[in-house]
């Protein structure tokens, strides 16, 4: 199976590469359009800032390419946020696959220490649906690091609560995305990545 990780100016690509290698897959890390189009699976990872990253994607025409992909695509963290309509992070118009807004967590004063920003650590998922979450029991924990979150709506494939309910995962057609880092989420994350690789086209 040919798995491509989209290469761009964001960190944390190596972690995804290693996680796939642990599953026996050697992914190709590239920004070449033809390689991405011909892959069986495309992973769009990312840690970074929204406007700078969107600027890079536009310059490389990767934004339109991603939107037009037909094979299963998995966005991770910033990758997921950029697949939404718009991000509050520096008022950035995004790729627009998922009909959600990306907003900044606003701590509610007087509400204990759990409301720190970024949300950093393991949080539990609920109301999961779709192939990505096959064999994942409710309330299983995955690893998050983020200051911005996608609202919930029709495309929400998993919920999580932090300050308020948000989309821990989104899915529409062949597009899958997680706010959390499956590549860093222990066994649970490995099962989710494996589920992505096993999706029937």
């Amino acid at each position, binding site marked *: 199976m040919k798995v491509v990780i989209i290469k761009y100016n964001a*960190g*944390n690509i*190596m*972690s995804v590469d*290693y*996680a796939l*290698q*642990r599953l026996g897959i050697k992914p190709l890390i590239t920004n070449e359009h033809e390689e991405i189009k011909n892959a069986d699976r495309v992973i769009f990872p990312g*840690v*970074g*800032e929204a406007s700078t990253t969107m600027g890079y994607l536009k310059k490389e025409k990767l934004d339109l390419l991603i939107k037009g992909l037909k094979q299963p695509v998995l966005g991770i963290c910033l990758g997921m946020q950029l697949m939404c309509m718009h991000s509050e992070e520096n008022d950035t118009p995004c790729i627009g696959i998922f009909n959600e807004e990306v907003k900044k967590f606003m*701590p509610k004063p007087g509400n204990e*220490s*759990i409301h*720190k*920003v*970024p*949300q*950093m*650590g*393991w*949080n*539990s998922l609920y109301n999961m649906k779709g192939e990505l979450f096959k*064999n*994942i*029991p409710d*309330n*299983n*924990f995955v*690893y998050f*690091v*983020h*200051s911005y979150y996608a609202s919930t709506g029709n495309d929400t494939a998993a919920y999580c*609560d*932090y300050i308020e309910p948000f989309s821990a995962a989104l899915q529409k057609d062949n597009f899958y995305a997680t706010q959390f*880092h499956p*590549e*860093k*989420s*222990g*066994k*649970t*994350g*490995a*099962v989710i990545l494996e589920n992505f690789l096993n999706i029937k086209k």
Partner: protein
Amino acid sequence: MLAKRIIPCLDVRNGMTVKGINFVNIREVGDPVELGAMYADQGADELVFLDITASHEGRKTFVELVKRIAKNVNIPFTVGGGISELKDIEALLAAGADKVSINSAAIKNPDLINSMALHFGSQFVVVAIDALEKNGQWVAYINGGRIPTEKELFSWAKEAQNRGAGEILFTSMNHDGTKNGFACEATAKLSENLSIPVIASGGAGNMEHYAEVFTSGKADAGLAASIFHFREITVPELKTFLNERNIPVRLDIISKLNTSQHGQQ
């Protein structure tokens, strides 16, 4: 609900874990990768690898080791010790580190925090503070607790946050090694004064100490070394204990399912 994090800390010298290795199945001088993977399997939420002598002797953390850890460990990990330049940090990120902690370098050159946050994002930046309380005053120390500075714990932590730190790792030198419990009062004050997570370190001696630091200490995470290395407590025991006290912890439901399937065979 966001879980409180349990973080074993591994001290590394010349690429090997140097202290507290008392396991049956692991070599006397431990391989950090092997140990890290074992803790990850046990349910540790995160790991910290500290090059303990690095700051004093000016050595650099080994990028190659970080690469091996990243390849083999499926939970987040922080690397620290002797890190003072942006190019070192970039190499660690490229090798697969999830976070880098800076301590002495941040105090000597606070702008480094701003540069790290700008280049890589705040979530990548852990500012570690070793502090000693004397006459009610918490003073930050550098070079592995050897040299006192002008910085006061609470104001320095706030400054680090404002400069772009994503997390504070606070070690109480008064408590470190005592096994009498964490510095709960100071940790709580830090946590209340900051909008970023606080990792408490120093003093863990039993499971009750962890419960205290997560309740009255208001810590987001608790770090310890020897109690885990010497198996005085194990991560699964600790998590069960905390869960029974209604402290939110990550219980690995999938591994539990696997275990029960095994049991039936």
